[in-house]
Structures are given as C-alpha cells and as structure tokens.
C-alpha cells in the first residue's frame, strides 16, 4: 500500500499535517506515517490523529540543528518509497523539504493551501504566487509527490481515542557541517494575533504615534488585538514584526478585521482573506482595500475613530 508521510517541527503543526494526510489517505487508499521528533509528544498522540505508523527520531544533541535529520529521512524514503510527503511549512520545514526533494530528485509544491485528489488525475495542489495575486495549481510529475503545508491552512479535527500502531525508531542523525553555537530568544511576543476574534490593523495611513494610540483605544473597546501592515514595522518602527499581517507575516482568520489607514496592497490582503468580516476605514475612496472589504468607511480616521469608539461604547451599554 502506498504511504503518506507527515513531518512538522511543532506538535501543533504536525497535528494539522497529520489530519490532512489522514483525509488524503482515505481518498488515496494510502496508509499514514508520522515522522515524529521524540521530544514533541508521545507516539500515541500521532495515532490519535490518524497515523497508522510512527517513525520516531531521537532528540538531537544541542549542537545539531534540526535540519540534520535530512539524510536520515532521505535514507528511509528510499526504503519506504512513500507516495506523498507532507512537511509543515516553517523556516526549518521549508529547508528540510527542499533538501529532501533535492536528494530524492522529486518535485515539491511549496506552501500548498488546497489539495484535491482525483483517481484519474492524481493530486492537484494549489499555492499562491505573484505576491498573492494568483493561485497556481500544480501537479507533481515524480514520486514521492511532496508539499509543504503552512500553519492553519487545513482544519484540525478532534483526536480519536484509543488508536494504536507500529512504532519504528529511526537512527540518530550524524553531525553535519553546520553546528549550532547559540540560540537566542526573539523579542518577547505579546498577545495572540492568530487566535484573536477581532483584529484592528493599522497601515501607512497613520501619521503619528498619537494616531496609533487612537487605534489602540478602538482595539481596547472592541477587545481586539492590534496588528499592522509591513510599512508600519519597517518604515515607522512602531510595532514589532510578529504583529505584521500579510504574505510575509501572519495570516489571520478573525470574525472581524478592521483596517485603519490600510490601503489594501495585495501582499497584505492575502493575510486577511480568511477573515469573516472585513471592515476598512480610509480617506482615499480609490484605496484597493474597499474592493475586498465587506464594509467600508470613506473618511479621515481621526474623525471616524472617535465616533466609532463612542458608538461602540453606547452599543455595548445598551
């Protein structure tokens, strides 16, 4: 029976990749193998997410980067001949997938956001290209078919209890030519944009930090997380990078996204396409954000925001 492999750097993402693998496995008649880095979770966690088998990698010594697992995976893939290899798309995941694809001389679809299986056509995978302007549909012509899977692109279903399967221990990776000499924390990450039900996002239309304070006041009234577009991080330096929404930042799916002074460049819009409701305030009625917004307010946010804050407070107290 053809097999599907799933690997991801974090348990959260591995669950998503496993669920996708499980649903494809049912359609393709393929078994599901979890490649599990031992320190993430007990193997039973993978069985509960639908895995039939777990290939377990030992925890790595601190000087080995995670990428050192590539030769181990390549060796095992040559024995196993999986039909499909799905890898969670993180920085490490993308490197590991590309190198594994290189070693296996296999085609690989980066950041697959949708996949369809058809008995005659096989797998068709969608990915975003041209900075978010287009969706490219791709088929792999080689085996294994490979793809990296971004976080939150596919749903996670609740785990099934009591499943079990085979556990195989993989050999420990050998030291490669890259050695880790230090790990440093990034700037503290506050709030939780990815889980937020409401997001207030500020764009380049803001001119002063007092404007930002006004947007924060709106966020406080709405119980929203604050976020921003890339220029606010790179040109204004007002907010940290992890609050940046877009193709090269976070992709969010709140109930309500409220853009303040956001023009709606496509690179940003890709990051909000899954929002339930998009609302935008911009003084330029030609701003592209209005074409992708459910509700638009054409006006100066310095006038609109105080009115909106007042109205929301009243609505809240009614």
């Amino acid at each position, binding site marked *: 029976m053809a097999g599907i492999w799933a690997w991801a750097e974090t348990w959260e993402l591995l669950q998503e990749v496993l669920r996708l693998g499980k649903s494809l496995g049912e359609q393709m008649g393929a078994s599901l193998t979890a490649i599990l880095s031992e320190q993430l979770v007990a193997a039973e966690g993978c069985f509960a997410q639908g895995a039939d088998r777990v290939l377990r990698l030992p925890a790595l010594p601190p000087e080995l*980067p995670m990428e050192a697992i590539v030769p181990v995976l390549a060796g095992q893939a040559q024995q196993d001949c999986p039909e499909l290899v799905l890898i969670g798309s*993180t*920085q490490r995941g*993308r*490197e590991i997938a*590309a*190198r594994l694809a*290189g*070693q296996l*001389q296999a*085609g*690989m679809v*980066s*950041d697959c956001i949708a996949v369809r299986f058809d008995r005659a056509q096989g797998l*068709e995978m969608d990915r975003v*290209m*041209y900075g978010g*302007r*287009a*969706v490219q549909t*791709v088929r*792999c*012509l080689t085996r294994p078919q490979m793809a990296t899977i971004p976080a939150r692109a596919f749903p996670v279903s609740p785990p099934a209890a009591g499943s079990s399967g085979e556990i195989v221990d993989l050999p420990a990776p050998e030291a*490669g*030519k*890259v*050695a*880790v*000499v*230090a*790990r*440093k*924390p990034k700037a503290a990450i506050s709030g939780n944009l990815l889980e937020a039900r*409401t997001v207030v996002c500020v764009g380049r239309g803001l001119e002063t930090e007092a404007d930002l304070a006004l947007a924060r006041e709106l966020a406080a009234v709405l*119980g929203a997380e604050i976020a921003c577009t890339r220029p606010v991080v790179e040109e204004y330096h007002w907010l940290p990078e992890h609050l940046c929404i877009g193709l090269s930042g976070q992709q969010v799916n709140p*109930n*309500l996204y409220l853009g303040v002074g956001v023009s709606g460049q*496509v690179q940003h*819009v*890709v990051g909000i*396409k899954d929002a339930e409701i*998009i*609302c935008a305030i911009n003084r330029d009625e030609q701003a592209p954000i209005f*074409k*992708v*917004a*459910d*509700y*638009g*307010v*054409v*006006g*100066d946010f310095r*006038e*609109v925001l105080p*009115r909106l804050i007042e*109205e*929301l407070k009243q*609505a*809240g107290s009614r």
Partner: protein
Amino acid sequence: MAGLLGSVIASRLEYDLILCGDGSSDRYSQQVGPRLAEKLGIPVVTAVVGLELESDRIIAERKLETNLEVVAVKLPALLTVLPDLNTPRIPGLRDTLDAAKKPVVTIAAAELPPVAAALIETVALQGLVLERNCVQFGADANAIRQLVETLRKSGAVG
C-alpha cells in the same frame, strides 16, 4: 533552476561562498538555494539575517519562528538570506562607472548542459478572487451608527 545553476557552477566556477535570496518574488517557492546546495554537496544555512566571516568558517544568525539560532558552517557553503540582513546602499557615480568596467560573461543557451525533465507541472493559473459585500458607509455620526448596528447584527461585535 537549481539543476541548471548547479551544472554551470560545478563546471565553470571556483567558489567559497554562494549567497541566494530566500525566494523569488514571483513564485516564492524558496527551493532553489537548498536544492542547489544538495546538488553541489555543500552545507546550506537558510533564513540568515546576520553573518560574520571567521577565517575558514561563517558564523550566521538565522531567524526562525520562535527564536534566533546562531550556527557555524565551514566553507564552502551556501547561505540563503532574508531582507533583514542589510539595507542596500544607493550606488554613487564612481560605483556606477566602476561597475561598467566589471567583466560580464554571457553563456549562450547552446553551451548550457541539457535541462533535466520537469519535476512539477502547472496545470492552472488563476487570479485570486475575494468575494466581499463592498458596502460603503459615510463618515458622519449617523453613518457610523448604522455601521455599528450592521456589525452588531452580523455578530462581529457584541
């Protein structure tokens, strides 16, 4: 692309360090760098935001999702770098004049090694469409009241 670059580099060039961007601006598949390194059989460090040369090795800082990782890699090696690495300066007149004197080697298509068979095929390419209501409100107090009412009815605000 990685296969072609690999053949040209391996057959014509001596190198200690290969620098690649993190991805092309059209497809942004982020595969060429790591695949090229595999093809050449040299180590790769991706997502580099800082680097220092230390005799025959590079100390590189990688930006990962949750932390920064500092690695040492012996040359020859390939690095893929993120835009955070530096801010390119604007070239001056002197630089522009000097640049014109630098050698440019053109490799004709006929001189290239045969291109390997494609590994993937694009079967469709479509513009991204977002279907939204596109209802517009004015900016006066009345219109804002209507907006809040609409948001409230849709369940977006409490």
